[in-house]
């Protein structure tokens, strides 16, 4: 891998119109996304990778809910 000839990438949290967030590296400052694996009907129940994002959100909610209870 040659250094210095590749574009710079930033880790961006992309928010789809459906509200799901996807963390990706990209060459752009911001990205507009109207449809993703979380809201596309074909992906429903397919266990798409979008579920990672969901899970993260749920884990955080879970942590918040039970914070200090144990």
């Amino acid at each position, binding site marked *: 891998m040659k250094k210095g000839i590749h574009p710079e990438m930033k880790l961006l949290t992309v928010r789809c119109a459906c509200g799901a967030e*996807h963390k990706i590296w*990209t060459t752009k400052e911001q990205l507009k996304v109207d449809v993703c694996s979380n809201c596309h009907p074909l992906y429903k129940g397919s*266990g798409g*990778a979008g579920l*990672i994002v969901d899970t993260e959100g749920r884990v955080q909610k879970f942590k918040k809910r039970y914070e200090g209870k144990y």
Partner: protein
Amino acid sequence: MTYEFIPLKEKYQKEVVPALMKEFGYTNVHEVPKLVKVVVNMGIGEGSRNKETAEIHAKELTAIAGQKALITKAKKSISNFKIRKGMTIGAKVTLRGPRMYNFVYKLINLVLPKVRDFRGLNPNSFDGKGNYNFGLTEQLVFPEISPDQTKRIQGMDIVIVTTAKRDEESRRLLELLGFPFKKQ
């Protein structure tokens, strides 16, 4: 790109590897199929095949891949296709490691859902050796490409190379990573 976070990699390690070990009975983690590289190739059609067009598409490919794309040239002349040796015929990029995982995550979660009338990927487009091929008809499905700045629609072929020996194992690897295949 520093790698404190690599999209999809954790899912592969924590979910896909154990699932594949269970399903196919691998005894060693190193036997479990994994992604090797992703090759993205834009073959520019006859008629608009010139250096400027190729450079524009190479720039687009660089923006979507996060790695400098190369201009491809014909290795030999093919008269039926009006190709002369050395002629510019497209642009290409080969991704490995973190950039590959990032690209595949983006494909699955943001790019394929944007394909017009998407009904799922063809589950039979494997090459018999565990590699998967598919095409996208327009570069506009990538979030990095803005439609107002695009003068020419260009598709691309994508090859996912894996260490799987059989198509069945490769298909399951991709499925578990989240590739949306058409139901067979």
